[in-house]
């Protein structure tokens, strides 16, 4: 089952996504990132942004993906509530859907500064379940 959760870091917050594929784990980690700011269910998904990135390893690709989203969130003043990720080797192409920040509706908690290499892991278990996680500096 696709899922996301937050895990504790003393100063900031960890985001973790799980899924049957690495694509889904990345999508879920992105939902976890949105949830650092607001309840993802409050985001209306009527605008679309395309994102691509490439990295030397899968875990660095996760950092790049989350940092690309942070960049789009801050420069477009948007929040994203739905993601479609496609990873081909070490190349990621994605669609992020969301809306402009509505401060009354979303009551944004914090502004993520950057995804970090702290507690960074992308892995799968024996049953093929993928997990993608790192700490986000807020």
């Amino acid at each position, binding site marked *: 089952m696709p899922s996301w959760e937050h895990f504790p870091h003393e100063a900031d917050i960890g985001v973790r996504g799980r899924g049957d594929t690495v694509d889904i784990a990345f999508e879920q980690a992105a939902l976890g990132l949105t949830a650092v700011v607001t309840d993802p269910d409050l985001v209306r998904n009527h605008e679309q942004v395309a994102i691509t990135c490439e990295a030397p390893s899968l875990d660095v690709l996760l950092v790049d993906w989350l940092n690309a989203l942070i960049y789009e969130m801050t420069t477009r003043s948007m929040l994203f509530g739905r993601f479609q990720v496609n990873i081909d080797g070490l190349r990621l192409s994605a669609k992020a859907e969301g809306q402009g920040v509505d401060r009354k509706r979303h*009551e944004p908690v914090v502004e993520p500064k950057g995804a970090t290499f702290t507690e960074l892991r992308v892995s799968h278990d024996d049953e093929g379940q993928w997990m993608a996680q790192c700490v986000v500096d807020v």
Partner: protein
Amino acid sequence: MDIAPLQQISEDQWRLPPTGKMRVPVVFYADRALLEGMDDKAGGQAVNVATLPGIVKASYVMPDGHWGYGFPIGGVAAFDAEEGGVVSAGGVGFDISCGVRCLLTGLRASDVEPVKQQLADALFARIPAGLGSTGQIHLNDAELTAMLSGGARWAVDRGWGSQEDLDRIEEHGAMHGAEPQHVSQKARHRQRDEMGTLGSGNHYLEVQRVAEIFDPHVAYQLSIAGGEVVVSIHCGSRGLGHQIGTEYLREMAIAAAKHGIELPDRELACAPLRSEVGRRYLGAMRAGINCALANRQILTHLTREVFSDVLPQAKLPLLYDVSHNTCKEEEHVVDGVQRRLFIHRKGATRAFGPGHPELPEQLRDIGQPVLIGGSMGTESWVLVGTAEGMTLSFGSACHGAGRRMSRHRAKKQWRGSKLIENLAHRGIIVRSVSMRGVAEEAPGAYKDVRAVVDSADRAGLARKVARLEPMVCIKG
């Protein structure tokens, strides 16, 4: 943290001798209770820092030390370029030159009390805070470049402050050696609409009352009087600094092996000071420092505008502005020899002692003011640097209370609306766009700032001057 392997040097100084790949010892400045309360991971990070090439004397942890990224927050380390020393993007962090500035008002608390609500509303309306807020200043690329070179001096030249302000800012308001050409278009884009914004998380603007004076002589020289009101602003280099951190951290983490550096933790991402990427980062990071200095200068201007509407008799001169996430090239005496070193302070405040040539003339006899931010319901502090601090920690002290509980736990434990109500009963007005944000920043999620400051004072890192209590808090 397990303190069994540590040698106790004094009540507030502990030493972990070098073992394995450590090139130098770790020195902790904290009392036993603070040290035992520190996360093991913070100690582990300080050990990792001690393994980096070119580190001088020791890897230091301040009394507010806690688990950070690569470096512990509250970490101080000096590197010598001549000995293969490094500069670490992780050692500076994402919020380059995040810091605190304090403005005097000359007003008595009794002058402010009757208009406190009005002042809180006016500040909340005027100071852009949190995600989705933008400043009123929008910079084109040429202006951004000028700002990245000029820092607070650039802001003053545009009418957002005075020459007197610049004397009360580290580097006299403009960091030398900034190289805006090494700041990417993405970093510039993130900053275009963010000048004069507070940010979020633990950033704040507070109206505070001077509750207690510890050193009347120094307080008098700093024009701090008991019962008077000051304004403190805590924020940094906003999106530009975050993007510089993001990009160089990635580049250094990947390139470390090429430079023959074995990173015990990728977040410690660093490069030799003499390498091409090391030099580039220094230029970009210094531009980030200027961005933070300019940002706090603009926020000061906005604050002055609000006060001129609500309490027009107040002038709001700047007491001082400190940065606590930096790497700066400084002269220090090590074992009797003068050396030029690169001092990383990650969640640590520069605290130069009396007589230091970098200090403006008015402050030279008393040492650099050290501004310590507390959590919104507790207290903040003014200290001054000491002569002994120059040898104890390369002229560095703590920077705040330091978290003791994760945001994750804090939001489960407290409700923002209830916290605001409780603080209001104590006469503290909090304004924030997010109740969950208030819960995550609950005073109880932080260490006891008084214990941190007392430990820094006893250790000799800095000396207590005054304690400040909040009256109004605008949360980022």
